């Protein structure tokens, strides 16, 4: 078989092998489904709770996308400002890093004081947790424009704004799309944390309630749904990255 085919098959083989081993492991060692349910048990639970799971998953998806969308808009804007002004960059960097260091789960109570329980805290948590990598990447892309390129344009009388929009922003796109893959994953973590603590719907909330009621298979089923959703969203951003910045992925390493 050709290497290319092997590479295409490898993810499937490894994934199926992983679950098969898990299944065998559970049956051979007779592990209680309270500790670690077998994949078949979890799948059964997914089927059994499908309506409930679908409803909550849709909610989580919306929260994540809303927070992610906010983060993309805000991240692009702030990244452009930081990338084009060394002064603002140097001035705000400690603040940004400090803010990013706060575990966002600690911010949820404040969001509840401000907005109450509902859809706002999950969206805000998703946004707060995911904008930072976008800002840093866009700013880096813009700030590292080749000095010769800058000279060429400045000698023509280009303004700072011209240089940022003609060269900086397009040049930052590979960094931007790279950061989206990180940001979507983080946004997802954020919305689930928000739902766990400050919402009456969503997978996060479902998880909290199921674990409080010791409904172990439902907890695992929710986790599986989270994983599948996460993979799908990651794949969509990765696809967007490839189709938007093909010019940046011409190296043999990326092929």
């Amino acid at each position: 078989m050709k290497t290319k085919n092997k590479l295409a098959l490898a993810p499937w083989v490894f994934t199926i092998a992983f679950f098969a081993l898990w299944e065998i492991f559970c049956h051979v060692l007779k592990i209680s489904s309270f500790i670690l349910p077998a994949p078949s048990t979890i799948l059964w639970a997914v089927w059994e709770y499908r309506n409930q799971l679908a409803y909550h998953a849709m909610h989580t998806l919306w929260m994540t996308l809303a927070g992610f969308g906010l983060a993309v808009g805000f991240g692009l804007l702030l990244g452009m400002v930081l990338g084009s002004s060394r002064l603002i960059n140097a001035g705000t960097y400690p603040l940004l890093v400090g803010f990013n260091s706060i575990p966002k789960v600690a911010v949820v109570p404040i969001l509840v004081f401000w907005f109450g329980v509902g859809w706002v805290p999950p969206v805000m948590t998703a946004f707060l947790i995911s904008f930072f990598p976008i800002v840093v990447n866009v700013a880096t892309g813009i700030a590292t424009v080749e000095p010769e390129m800058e000279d060429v344009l400045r000698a023509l009388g280009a303004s700072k704004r011209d240089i940022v929009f003609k060269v900086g922003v397009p040049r930052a796109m590979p960094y931007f799309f790279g950061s989206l893959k990180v940001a979507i994953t983080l946004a997802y973590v954020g919305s689930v944390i928000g739902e766990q603590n400050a919402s009456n719907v969503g997978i996060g909330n479902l998880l909290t309630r199921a674990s409080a009621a010791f409904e172990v298979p439902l907890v695992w089923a929710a986790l599986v749904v989270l994983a599948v959703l996460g993979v799908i969203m990651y794949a969509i951003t990765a696809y967007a990255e490839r189709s938007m910045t093909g010019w940046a992925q011409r190296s043999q390493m990326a092929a």
Partner: protein
Amino acid sequence: MSAFVDIHDVTHVYARVEDGLPAVQNLNLKVNEGEFAAIVGPSGCGKSTLMKLATGLQFPREGTVIVDGREVGAPVKLAGMAFQNPTMLPWRTTRDNILLPLEIVEPHRSRLRRHKAEYVAKAERLLAQVGLKGQGDKFPWQLSGGMQQRASLCRALIHEPKLLMLDEPFGALDSFTREELWCVMHDLHAAQKVTIILVTHDLREAAFLSDRIFCMSARPGRIVAEREVEFPRPRDIEITYTPEFSSLVHELRSHIAQARQAA
């Protein structure tokens, strides 16, 4: 006739330099309109600083820089530039890279959208002139280094600048490609009548292309010798193998050697 580029008694110190040593000191240089001038010198002699001064990217600490009859107080806007690194934008096709200056410089900037076809035709003409006919649709990274450098020359000339600044544009190319591009450059100069200042390490390049050669000393840079080149134009690459050419190159070499020793 007053000079097109007149650098008079200029001393320049970069603000971020720690030892406070000037990059250039008491620099005097005059280039006439339409002339092809070359500046040669040991590495680190402030040749690039000179480029920045002449295009208004830097302003001198002391002395004056006059370009086209006006003292330079802002980027001059009538200059085109090309560097050793072709700095093509990888997300634009070669043609769109060449059209980039027109998106910046007036009056083209406001005309570009409505007169696109006219400008594209102009870019195609330039591409044909440098031997890149029909390559405009390719991305720069699909071209070889020499081809990218040709495209970079087109970009420097598309807005019909009155002054073309070349900073070692052929420095990274192999010697065959380099000689080819000398001829391209020679023909472009003959066709466009633009004033050119070429900064280079290559004495043969300076001797073949230019009307006037300035030798710079090591940092802080000054002009230590000025030499007119009398070979008639148009020139053929064959002249580089004549004894007159060799003796000129030899003479330049001794100036540079002295400049290096003095440092």
